[in-house]
């Protein structure tokens, strides 16, 4: 589980995240939403221990800054918004990077590392691309390989920054369904940032609305995705319609 208290992050002297509190229970999927510049990505990176921050971030009861890096890498896996695609690297080798925290200095990957990666590639239906170069894959295939690398870390917590931002709606749904299935199968805890509000609401156990670096609303999709909240913080006129899996947000012309 993740417990964040009074998280503050400064980038180049600007306060980007300004006192965020949030909790993610084991096995829960929490979606962080908010307008551009609200500090979603920055907060996520700080929670992953990748940015210096004040306040406290505890992961499974341990302060993140006190976790040795390798231990941290086997506890939390992060998929960035636009992960770098190393030139000419094959899918198998990319996914094997996820085993880095298990490989001792000067050592090489063991049969167990290879087996773990092959299992993950099979599970995400990208094993047939194992010998392909990552850069030759389509956006949706790539996103699954990024996920494979993160899952190969064997961590119980996944931090996903805009996991569907580069995808069409068909592939968005496919990737989110996949994450939901993996979450159930592997008992993963997921904290993700999302732009698409309706979709975020459909998959989230709980949502957190961030604006100007602070939490302005939190709770179920129905509690957070209200016309008042969105009008105030996104400066947009929307109609919220009750859908099968949660509220559907439709922008309307003002």
């Amino acid at each position: 589980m993740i417990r964040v208290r009074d998280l503050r992050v400064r980038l180049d002297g600007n306060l980007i995240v300004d006192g965020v509190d949030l909790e993610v229970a084991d096995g829960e999927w929490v979606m962080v939403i908010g307008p551009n510049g609200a500090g979603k990505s920055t907060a996520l990176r700080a929670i992953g221990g990748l940015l210096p921050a004040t306040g406290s971030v505890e992961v499974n009861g341990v302060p993140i800054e006190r976790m040795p890096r390798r231990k941290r890498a086997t506890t939390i896996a992060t998929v960035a918004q636009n992960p770098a695609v190393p030139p000419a690297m094959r899918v198998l080798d990319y996914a094997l990077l996820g085993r880095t925290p298990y490989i001792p200095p000067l050592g090489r990957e063991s049969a167990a590392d290879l087996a773990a990666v092959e299992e993950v590639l099979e599970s995400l239906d990208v094993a047939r691309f194992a010998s392909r170069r990552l850069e030759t894959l389509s956006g949706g295939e790539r996103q699954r390989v990024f996920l494979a690398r993160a899952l190969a870390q064997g961590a119980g917590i996944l931090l996903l920054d805009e996991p569907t931002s580069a995808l069409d709606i068909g592939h968005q749904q496919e990737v989110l369904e996949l994450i939901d299935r993996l979450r159930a199968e592997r008992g993963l805890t997921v904290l993700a940032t999302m732009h698409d509000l309706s979709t975020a609401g459909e998959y989230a156990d709980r949502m957190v609305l961030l604006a100007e670096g602070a939490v302005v609303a939190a709770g179920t999709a129905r509690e957070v995705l209200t016309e008042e909240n969105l009008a105030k913080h996104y400066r947009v006129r929307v109609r919220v319609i009750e859908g099968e899996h949660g509220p559907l947000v439709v922008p309307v012309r003002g």
Partner: protein
Amino acid sequence: MTVRPAGTTRPAGTVRPAGLRAGWLAGGVVAVLIALVAGLAFGSVSLPPAGVAIELLNLIPGVHLHSGLTEREVAILTELRLPRVVLGLLVGGLLALAGAAYQGVFRNPLADPHLLGVAAGAGLGVTAVISLRAGTSGDATANLPVGVPVAAFAGALLAVALTWLLGAAGGRDRSPATLILAGVAVSSFLAAGQTYLMQQHVDTLREVYSWLLGRLATAGWHDVLIVLPYAVVTAAIVLSQRRELDVLTVGDEEASSLGLHPQRSRYLLIVAASLGTAAAVSVSGLIGFVGIIVPHTMRLLAGPSYRSILPLSVLFGGAFLALADLLARTAGGQAEIPIGVVTAFFGAPFFIVVLRRSRGAGTP
């Protein structure tokens, strides 16, 4: 565009992870042995390659075989040619390794061993020693003043230190881009100093140029013994970071999320590669091309993993330079051709061929 045959999409179980393949390693060792025997056999006096190979075996303690070479020929072999060929192997291996390390650290395919000011610093040091020495004259290629290697080494390390200090100007983190820019600034500054000295002492231009173009003319085993410890330390440090360099290709933040200390690896690699380059430059002058072309050739032929690029660069870089030196001292008749001219003249077309062949073929 070549269309990939269906057979290349295989299930994960049959694909081997990236790394050094035994075949390539064997190829590198064979290349070094060929360069060694060829470098020893050919020259102003040609020796039978078989006899040379037997004499090489005789260097192994406890081995005494009859090679058929005269005592004088054995002396030419062990006292004149062997140190020079070994120096070529060491310098070539070091430059190629340092170049590969820089390319990985800075994630920049154009990075070469002289990137952070090593060349300019060494150049200024050497120009100063040659120019400011009281006007002695002589054969420019053979009699460089004794202070030259020391001046080159000191100048090179001072330049890197200066780049390092300036690199902090953009923040304590010293991003790759800031360091490269600092290297450009330091190089220009030192090159200006060198040009000024050269203008003031035109009588020594020939000697300075002979050094700038690179040379492996040695005074026996002395230079080899100077370079050897640096080569060993540099190779040990850089090769120990080969997997880290692969992880660094995804960027610092992701490397950090995978459990590495990207900054620590980067500093370690920069220090080791700079030290090795400075040592190589101090005995051989500025030999360009090896540090940039050899690693790229290895990347195109044997794949993008630094776990294979680094060790193969050492072997093939060494073999390449030793063979280039063979050409430098035999192709031009009496006068030696500067080795930097040979490396570029033969290396560039070769690289173009490799580049064309690999395009679309899909390196593994």
